């Protein structure tokens, strides 16, 4: 039977650094995937994953076991992603949480010529639509849709209230509906 994350964390804290390798193998791909979707760069996603594990290893002594290791790891990774996005843009982005819903007639803007898209085009369109979201909305979408975290877990990872997570996701989905429709994908 495979050891749980909690057992592995306890082992690492007890001095068994080999147990950390198991945690890395277990979560590296997931963390990398989340970072890739947030940052849009595979190389940066690899760097973020490595940095996240390094930070986690260094901070393992202070890690309290009542928290989930994966949530903590996602939290570190998302913070690293934010740092990179900030450095990349050279400024803080404006939160769209405060922007009032536009209630646009999005579906009417759909270009008829793009109605029949190939699967690969749909994938590209979805990636572009997610990329067009604000950083905060993209984080929530990635953690929810692609990482499958629960709402309380996301709230824990991002350090925001549960209601904020749901509001961000609701608005993000609305925004995605517009973006996908603009790109000819029936959302």
């Amino acid at each position, binding site marked *: 039977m495979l050891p749980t994350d909690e057992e592995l964390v306890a082992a690492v804290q007890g001095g068994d650094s080999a147990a950390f390798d198991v945690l890395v193998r277990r979560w590296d791909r997931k963390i990398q995937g989340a970072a890739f979707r947030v940052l849009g760069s595979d190389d940066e996603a690899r760097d973020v994953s490595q940095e996240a594990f390094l930070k986690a290893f260094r901070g393992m002594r202070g890690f309290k076991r009542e928290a989930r290791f994966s949530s903590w790891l996602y939290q570190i990774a998302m913070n690293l992603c934010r740092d990179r996005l900030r450095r990349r843009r050279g400024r803080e982005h404006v939160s769209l949480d405060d922007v009032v819903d536009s209630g646009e007639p999005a579906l009417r803007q759909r270009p008829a010529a793009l109605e029949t898209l190939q699967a690969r085009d*749909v*994938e590209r369109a979805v990636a572009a639509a997610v990329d067009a979201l604000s950083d905060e909305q993209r984080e929530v979408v990635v953690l929810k*849709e*692609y990482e499958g975290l629960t709402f309380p877990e996301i709230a824990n990872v991002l350090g925001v209230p549960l209601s904020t997570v749901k*509001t961000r996701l*609701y608005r993000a989905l609305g925004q995605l*509906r517009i973006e996908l429709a603009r790109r000819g*994908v*029936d959302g």
Partner: protein
Amino acid sequence: MDCTEVREDRMDLLYGEAGPEAERRVLAHHAACASCRDEFEELRAVRQALGAWRMPQQAPSSRTRRVHPLAGLAAAAGLLLALGGAVRLSGAAFEYRAGNATLRVGGADLDGRLAEQEARHAREMQALHVALDAHARRDAPAEGPLLAKVEALIRENEERQARRFNTSLEDLAARAEAQRRYDLARVSAGLSYLDGKTGQHVARTSELMGYVLQASEKK
């Protein structure tokens, strides 16, 4: 119930995290609100579309290259061949007797070859250390002028600040002296004025006293 009031419950339901009570509230609201019901279906469709974005098994990277499965098999075959050759050369023998497989490692000069290999490793390590030292020495002089330049810049900056500080002090002293002289001049003028007033007062008093004396003498 207001549309915004059930928004969080709707998100829970959309992602399968709603409890029975929340689900009942949403369904009751949807039964009465066609707009929310339609939107809910649209959000479901968005979720479905999002599923199209899959992570590649091995995302393309500028740093790593994907290894073709056939190349992997070829590498494995090569490794087996090399291993077999090494086993033969080392004088080892693989035997299978009565259901037991054994690998016999031997050869008269095995110890000698192991010692030779160890010596070779030691030589390689030494060469590596030498290369690292050379690298460190090569880098060291390059940092010298840079450090000197940084120190010169710091020194220059400190001198400039000291000069600026001294100039400010001199300026302050000059302004204080000018103010002191101006104040003294004003005090002096005030005293002279007072002296003048006192002199007039004394003269007038004397004059009055003279009148009084003259009047008393006449009597």
